[in-house]
């Protein structure tokens, strides 16, 4: 499946939750499959922290040939014949405002100054993203979504959709998510943000203007994030306490079984892996975007306006829900999903909940666990599809 990202310009200003106004903006999005005649088969997929609009399929080069390894980040979930079957559903994936993957964000030019927005890009919230997505759907002539689906931060957007636009969502599929972040979650985000803003190359967020990049900070931010997405068991199984091989020849490897008693160099495999992940990330991700998105995570809390009572907040929801969590996910633990389930039960909403006993931690929502993928498939085939046809 070859896909081409599209860009939609919005000239009408968007008032953000903070009160700031984004005068005009672009949203980059991709669609998969066909909208049916009744316009009833559209599914919106919301992206998580470091992802984008490219959820499925391959991009093509100038000759129209598929670009190798350009699969979307949820390609195991979305496509023809896949759990979210694009031969049946019209799938829309939007890149959020503030992103560094196309939609208007800190790397773009601030019309007021002619310089990159940098740190001046307004703080965006989950609710702002949902509002922007809703405007795009208006233009695509999709009034009611068969479903909204997302994992992690995408799950929060999904939940928010059911509250901001209750009449526009038939089904909500919320995966490995939470009704808000715990203090521990916010603490991890804060460490990541401090790593970035204390990088001497951060230049108070105006590094593009200054011709620098806060790569060191971004690397550390990513290393912290990465640790929290995995489980202890998976890290142990994958790396254990193995030392990093410094040479391929056996004789050298044998000699290197001993510690080198260094505090600066890489000694363990896990260090090597985290540094590699951090380096890779710092090459393609924008630091201001990382700050904005982690802040959007911190701020999300639909119960806040209801004295902290989640069931009161969810009273607006009209959608039917599927929630999925993973037992080893300690960043967005099953207990957090059960809080949402409980609040939905108190509102007598239709809800199903699967708690998948998978070893992979938070990352499990991106991986190929057949119980997980089959649950999503069954839900779309039986429950969502029924109303699409009706």
């Amino acid at each position, binding site marked *: 499946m070859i896909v081409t990202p599209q860009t939609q310009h919005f000239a009408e200003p968007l008032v953000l939750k903070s009160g700031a106004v984004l005068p005009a903006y672009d949203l980059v999005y991709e669609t998969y499959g066909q909208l049916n005649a009744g316009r009833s088969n559209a599914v919106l997929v919301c992206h998580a922290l470091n992802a984008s609009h490219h959820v499925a399929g391959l991009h093509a080069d100038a000759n129209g040939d598929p670009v190798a390894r350009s699969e979307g980040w949820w390609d195991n979930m979305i496509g023809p014949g896949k759990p979210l079957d694009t031969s049946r559903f019209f799938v829309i994936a939007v890149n959020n405002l503030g992103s560094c993957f196309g939609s208007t964000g800190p790397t773009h030019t601030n019309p007021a100054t002619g310089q990159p927005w940098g740190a001046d890009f307004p703080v965006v919230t989950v609710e702002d993203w949902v509002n922007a997505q809703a405007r795009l759907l208006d233009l695509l002539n999709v009034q009611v979504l068969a479903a909204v689906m997302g994992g992690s931060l995408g799950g929060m957007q999904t939940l928010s959709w059911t509250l901001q636009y209750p009449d526009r969502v038939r089904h909500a599929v919320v995966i490995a998510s939470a009704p808000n972040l715990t203090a521990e979650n916010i603490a991890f985000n804060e460490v990541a943000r401090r790593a970035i803003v204390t990088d001497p190359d951060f230049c108070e967020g105006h590094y593009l203007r200054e011709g620098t990049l806060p790569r060191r900070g971004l690397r550390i931010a990513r290393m912290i994030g990465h640790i929290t997405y995995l489980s202890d068991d998976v890290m142990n199984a994958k790396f254990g306490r193995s030392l990093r091989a410094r040479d391929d020849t056996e004789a050298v490897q044998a000699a290197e079984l001993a510690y080198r008693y260094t505090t600066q160099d890489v000694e363990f495999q896990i260090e090597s892996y985290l540094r590699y992940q951090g380096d890779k990330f710092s090459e393609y991700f924008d630091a201001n975007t990382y700050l904005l998105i982690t802040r959007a995570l911190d701020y999300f809390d639909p119960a806040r306006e209801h004295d902290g009572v989640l069931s009161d907040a969810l009273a607006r929801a009209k959608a039917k829900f*599927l929630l999925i969590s993973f037992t080893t996910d300690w960043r967005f633990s099953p207990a957090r999903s*059960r809080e949402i*389930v*409980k609040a939905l*039960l*108190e509102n*007598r909403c*239709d*809800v*199903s*909940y*699967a*708690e*998948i*006993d998978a070893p992979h931690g938070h990352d499990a929502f991106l991986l190929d666990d057949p*119980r997980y993928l*089959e*649950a999503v498939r*069954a*839900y779309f*085939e*039986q*429950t969502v599809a*029924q109303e699409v046809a009706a």
Partner: protein
Amino acid sequence: MSEQSVIESIARLVPKGSRVLDLGCGDGALMAYLQHHRRCSGYGVEIDDSKVLACVKRGVNVLQLNLEDGLAVFEEGSFDVVLQIDTLQHLRNAETMLRETARVGRSGVVAFPNFAHWPNRLAVLQGHMPVTKRLPYQWFDTPNIRVGTHADFITLAGNCGLRIEDSFGLHEGREVRTLPNLMASTAVFRFTTNNL
């Protein structure tokens, strides 16, 4: 125990249009029947992955929870009927579960294998744990960690504050109303709770 006749006979005990919680709902066949034939709504609770999937495939609301952890996600008196069909015998905390049933439901239906059914008594008299169609497991390899009788449940129900409205036996798809403790392989109870 998901044969059609059993489903129908249990379903008759559930008033039309009621809000139902089915604890240990298995593949969701009973919930699906109640939704389609008796306009009921509600949720099944199940722990087994494949059965949870079967429920989703039937379009039954299912919650993957461990009943041993209690029913904390459910509000007091939030269901008209709580079902425990062939569930109680698998639970370590059977009494807690009945008390939780009394908390979240206004009434309940419980069914479980009746250990006092005469072939079982005969087997024990002969010095062996019974292995029958209804209790097909060897004593050392059985998921049924609680074996009780029709008569025993009446005592437990009293302790948990349940008021038994009806009780009978089920055997090979038929209701047994004469000497159910002796004559039926399955014990069935319909009761109300203090939440009424």
